[in-house]
């Protein structure tokens, strides 16, 4: 009898406990790939970083809402000189294994960051950094090899790892089971299936509200990602195709979040001396710009989800965007006139390289442009490339004379514009004046002067027309109505600070 009563009490206690835990909230996020490593400085792929940075935090971060640079594990920085930076760290923060987050941890992480054999993915960003020294437990001084205007970008990519644990398990093991200061803690990881994180109850800051468990699901098929959102299996789905995005927008219990991407879609018009073609003539390149109806492409191929480029590769929120520029209007008559002026009254023939499956709608955009060019007499011979081969040719400067590409460098005007510098590995333009502007802008620490330099560079680029300016891309995310305040950056990055979940 007593035995039975005890059993009953245990059962009801268990029942209560279960009901209690049922109010715990699990959020499921579907991305394209399973992370290769959860150490954020292991790769630059956003799928890896989104998951990894929920556990391991950086010195600063850039909030998708308004692209605002904010303190995180550091509270601020000051330039002592053009090549010396003082960084102040946040006090009272610990890693979830008890190790303190302080100058020692930052020095340890910094030294790994600048070691290109350990961190090859960030080699370009870490190049300007020379050394670091401790001033006190919560202040460090970083020395640079040269003045570096995109300093903020670099500081927001320096992720801080616990030295004790890191030295104990090593780089690879850390990436499989990381420990950090972030709002979530690693729980379990069934590769290619699900990655589970639980809430860090001792998180130093304001973590996400109402989320006790975060589950990451790699779903490679974009239609399956959309389907899972519709069935309620996922609360957040990344990288949705535009058709699915429209469908999701129409449903009352789901939201579609369009995010202007950092990716700038353009047609390479090679003017290099060794790439002999009519495109070496600036008038011809300008004619090509007049020949393409960019608004029509955005309207009909992208369902309106494309950002018109104002005749430049910098986006409106970026430093150096030139508000006085406009894109070449769609004017096929003008195009034909210019071609005749350049000596091609009957047009000419051209090879046109296009990737298939590398970007959304890549073939469709290429076919549309090919049709528009044919209208003004430019016959194109389309060569379709598989993504791997396309990337190889991009790297080897073989994408000439005409090719479709979507370039997405990190968010700094220098990184965006220096892709058109004559020394850049796959630049298809050599212009001394543009080079000069880029070189000056790269070293100019004064923000206003820098902005003016890039505005001039944009005006020059518009005239020289080294590319056909097409459009800025848009990324689509879907969320269920359980999720509030979700937003993402144009580089595919999203965070859980300030995100809340109901139920």
């Amino acid at each position, binding site marked *: 009898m007593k035995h039975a009563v005890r059993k009953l009490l245990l059962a009801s206690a268990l029942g209560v406990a279960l009901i209690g835990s049922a109010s715990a909230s699990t959020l499921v996020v579907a991305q394209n790939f399973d992370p290769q490593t959860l150490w954020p400085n292991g790769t630059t792929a956003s799928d890896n970083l989104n998951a990894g940075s929920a556990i391991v935090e950086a010195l600063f971060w850039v909030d998708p809402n308004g692209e605002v640079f904010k303190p995180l594990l550091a509270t601020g920085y000051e330039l002592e000189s053009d090549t010396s930076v003082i960084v102040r760290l946040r006090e009272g923060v610990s890693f979830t294994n008890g190790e303190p987050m302080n100058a020692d941890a930052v020095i340890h992480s910094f030294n790994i960051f600048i070691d290109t054999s350990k961190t090859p993915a960030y080699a370009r960003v870490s190049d300007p950094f020379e050394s670091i020294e401790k001033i006190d437990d919560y202040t460090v001084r970083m020395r640079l090899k040269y003045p570096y205007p995109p300093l903020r970008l670099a500081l927001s990519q320096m992720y801080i790892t616990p030295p004790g644990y890191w030295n104990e398990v090593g780089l690879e093991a850390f990436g499989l089971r990381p420990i950090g200061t972030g709002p979530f803690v690693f729980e379990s990881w069934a590769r290619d299936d699900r990655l589970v994180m639980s809430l860090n109850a001792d998180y130093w800051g304001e973590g996400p509200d109402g989320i006790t468990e975060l589950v990451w699901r790699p*779903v490679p*098929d974009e239609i399956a990602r959309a389907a899972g959102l519709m069935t309620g299996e996922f609360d957040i789905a990344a990288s949705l195709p535009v058709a699915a995005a429209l469908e999701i927008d129409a449903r009352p219990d789901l939201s579609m979040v369009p995010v202007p991407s950092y990716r700038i879609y353009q047609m390479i018009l090679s003017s290099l001396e060794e790439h002999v073609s009519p495109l070496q003539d600036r008038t011809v390149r300008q004619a090509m710009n007049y020949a393409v109806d960019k608004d029509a492409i955005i309207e009909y191929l992208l369902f309106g989800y494309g950002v018109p480029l104002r005749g430049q590769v910098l986006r409106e929120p970026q430093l150096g965007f030139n508000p006085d520029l406009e894109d070449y209007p769609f004017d096929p008559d003008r195009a034909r006139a210019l071609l005749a002026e350049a000596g091609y009254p009957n047009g000419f023939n051209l090879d046109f390289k296009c990737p298939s499956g590398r970007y959304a709608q890549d073939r469709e955009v290429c076919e549309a442009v090919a049709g528009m060019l044919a209208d003004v007499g430019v016959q194109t011979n389309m060569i379709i490339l598989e993504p*791997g081969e396309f990337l190889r040719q991009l790297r080897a400067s073989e994408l000439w004379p005409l090719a479709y590409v979507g370039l997405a460098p990190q968010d700094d005007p220098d990184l965006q514009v220096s892709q058109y510098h004559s020394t850049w590995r796959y630049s298809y333009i050599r212009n001394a004046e543009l080079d000069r502007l880029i070189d000056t802008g790269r070293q100019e620490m004064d923000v206003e002067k820098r902005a003016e330099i890039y505005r001039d560079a944009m005006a020059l680029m518009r005239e020289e027309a080294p590319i056909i300016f097409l459009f800025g891309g848009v990324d689509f995310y879907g969320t269920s109505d359980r999720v509030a305040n979700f937003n993402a950056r144009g580089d595919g990055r999203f965070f859980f600070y300030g995100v809340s979940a109901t139920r």
Partner: protein
Amino acid sequence: MLRYVARRLLLTLPVFVGILFISFLLTHLSGDPTDLILTPDTPDHVREEFRRRHGLDQPFLVQFYQFCIRALQGDFGNSLRFNQPALELVFERLGATAELALAAMFLAIAVGIPAGVVAAYRRNTPIDLGVRAVSLFGLAVPSFYLGVVLIFVFAVWLRWFPSGGRGTWMHLVLPAVVLAVDQLALIARTTRSCMLDVLNQDYVRTARSKGLGEGWVVWGHALRNAFIPVLTVIGLQFGILLGGVVVTETVFSWPGVGRLAVQAIYARDFPVVQATVFLFAVIFVIVNLIVDLLYAVLDPRIGYK
């Protein structure tokens, strides 16, 4: 029998070497993986370091030689993307692929063989035509399309099954059905044509005249005699399934070997491609050997020395 098995296994060694060489050759011909794994703006000295570390700067034959030496010790190298041993990555996912393959095969056999038998027995009746029509449909419909349709009907609309991933038996149903449809078609047709042959034989008539029940004649005698070609088909198909069915695994986000293989191919992750190809070859050879041994069980006339 044991000597037969030993001799067969010995004959597989040149097969494996050949496969290793061809897969090595083809993947390396496809291009340099460095550009796909490191971002395009990586400085040159970092790229060179990466290539040196992974032996990519050596001449082709030197790379192959080094690879063979290590492979003999079970080391296929580290994945270029994951920094984990390639073979380990494959083994992690083998269980998932095996689970899916077994479920699909089970479904295909359970439905396909009876369907084939009945179709043969009731030749040229509506049942026979029905079986043949459904088989044709199954072979003709691409698995990608069928998968997406099933997801939208049974997951999104009816909410009976999850839309993807692996977990409970419910996650297994839709992908197994997609795979089974293809296999089923093949098994049903093979069973049917073999049964048609056998049902005309003298010994079937003899069995009937001996007074054996029809069920025993058809399922006991005829099927057993017709079974060898069907077993061959089952064996071959099972071997293929174990290699990982890329499209189905991708559509249903099933964490199997096929998905790993295709992602590795796109990324030119040589060690993983090598490991997958090699493992697939081993599995295929073993499955074929088992099928051959089963012949002896089924048909006492076949003996191996």
